[in-house]
């Protein structure tokens, strides 16, 4: 096979030695892009004591893994990780670099892109090659989709949230080349992660919830948000939000659904006091039943759901919660 294009890279991420889901999903997409380009899929994975996990990656579609394996790499260190990736990228000249839109990826990606003097697209919801084999990086904006390209600079870089691409099928027994990186003896950094503290999230986790209640700007204030929480409690639902709801400080940033937040696929979604902007709606896929409550009959959300209630959510939601409570106890 002709191999004129550089490889497609995925910057892997591990948490406590486990490779995270979005990395594997990106390897799946990288495989498709690499097949079209006639090139290879390579993963850069940094951590400590993770050789076995690195070898596991081949079965998801990687051809080569560059492994940085050292105690100092156990936890994400922005400057050290950036230096290693930039140095390797200058040497190997990848055509494309993909990162997960995780907290790590969202910090690391712009640092790597600026050092490589190339472009970077945030939180893509699709990645396809056009006729010139240039990566079309799709993001939702202004009620539609825009496609961003990086026509001249290389690599072409993008971040993608967990859940945008499916997990690839595992090919048991598939192998590849594991290359352990030679690291500088003293990796210096002006910013050092001392400790990572993980807290258990409250309530039902959004990513896997069967029922999601999402609120937007129309919820009005913290009292209105308390009504959303009440309904969610009654339905054992996870709470989601739009950017305006988060900007107003009612909703936890981790509850944001959509392009720059979480991707969800619940059975039932109820959107309350939100207009139906694509940045939010794009985060909901394969949902069986969708409901919207909004006092504006012209809100575009009413074109994107199965059942619509045109009413003031502040009045309607407490009543609905009460009805559900009665139904449950009756």
């Amino acid at each position, binding site marked *: 096979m002709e191999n004129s294009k550089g490889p497609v890279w995925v910057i892997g991420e591990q948490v406590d030695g486990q490779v995270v889901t979005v990395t594997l999903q990106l390897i799946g997409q990288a495989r498709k892009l690499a097949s079209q380009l006639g090139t290879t899929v390579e993963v850069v994975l940094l951590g400590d004591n993770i050789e076995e996990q690195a070898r596991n990656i081949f079965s998801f579609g990687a051809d080569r893994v560059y492994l940085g394996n050292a105690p100092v790499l156990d*936890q994400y260190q*922005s*400057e050290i990780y950036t230096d290693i990736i930039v140095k390797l990228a200058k040497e190997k000249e990848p055509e494309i670099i993909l990162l997960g839109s995780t*907290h790590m990826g*969202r*910090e690391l990606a*712009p*640092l790597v*892109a600026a050092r490589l*003097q*190339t*472009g*970077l697209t945030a939180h893509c919801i699709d990645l396809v090659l*056009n006729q010139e084999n240039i990566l*079309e990086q799709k993001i939702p904006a*202004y*009620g*539609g*989709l*825009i*496609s*961003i*390209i*990086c026509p001249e600079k290389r690599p072409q870089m993008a971040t993608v949230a967990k859940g945008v691409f499916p997990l690839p099928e595992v090919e048991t027994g598939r192998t590849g080349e594991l290359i352990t990186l030679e690291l500088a003896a003293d990796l210096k*950094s*002006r*910013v050092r992660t*001392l*400790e*990572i*503290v*993980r*807290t258990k*999230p409250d309530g039902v986790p959004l990513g896997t919830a069967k*029922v999601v209640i999402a609120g937007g700007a129309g919820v009005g204030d913290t009292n209105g948000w308390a009504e959303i929480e009440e309904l969610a409690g009654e339905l054992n639902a996870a709470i989601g939000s739009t*950017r305006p709801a*988060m*900007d107003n400080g009612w909703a936890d*940033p*981790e509850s944001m659904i959509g*392009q*720059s937040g979480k991707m969800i696929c619940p059975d*039932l979604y109820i959107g309350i006091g939100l*207009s139906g902007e*694509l940045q939010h*709606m794009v985060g909901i896929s394969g949902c*069986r*039943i*969708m409901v919207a409550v909004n006092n504006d*009959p012209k809100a575009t959300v009413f*074109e*994107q759901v*199965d*059942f*619509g*209630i045109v009413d003031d959510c502040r*009045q*309607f939601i407490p*009543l609905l919660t009460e009805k559900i409570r009665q*139904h449950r106890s009756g």
Partner: protein
Amino acid sequence: MLNIVVCVKAVPEPKESCKITIDPVSKTLNRCEVAMVLNPLDKNAMEAALQLKEQYGAHITVLSMGPPQASPIVKECLALGGDQGFLLSDRAFGGADTYATAFTLASGIKKVGKPDIILCGMASSDGATEWVGPQIATFLDMPVVTMLKEIVNSAGDCWQVKASLEDGYRLLEVDLPALFTVTRDLNEPRALSFSGIIKARKKKITVWGKEDLGVPEESLGLPGSPTIVSEMTTTDNKRQVEIITGSREEMADQLLLKLVDAGAI
């Protein structure tokens, strides 16, 4: 005394931004009269600067890149307690992606003088890419901490801070000078005071164009941007909606029935 630069952006009023849409025929933006406001997270960046000023004494420079209409946003930050304001404004800056924007802002910061601390909102409400802060830091060769949620210890030249994570936080140590992008968790932004507005009348906003920055024009605006928008399309997420009507009671009863019938409750 600390030298602090706060980078701010004028964004379309978030509540009205949905009015900007893509025309399905011409594939261009239907812009309309949407008011420009201070990016919400930049208020937290400004508040952090003001608190540091109160604690240690500081000189706060407010810096923005944008059209002349962005000037009131810089003025607002001066009214909050910023000491001097700069607006980088030139047609040559237009069409910049995050890379060119960060390069332009970094050039402005170099001209102002290298600060001890640079503060930015974590993201802008219109672009939401989060790239500009870390890329400014790269161009100025400074360390960066994104998603700052708490300053644990700000005494001396090595700070201890917390940055937010998916499920928890990172505790970090960072050597100054450094750039931080801030989250809403960091503080509660103060409101504008009348006396602040009066004082800001006397504070000057300096406007700098491309000649003032003294950088090659091809590194600015559209020519300096690695990425471009290649295409705009409208999407079709349409479902066959059933609008439930009736009194509020009836609507609640009907919706409950539908959800129960569908096995969702």
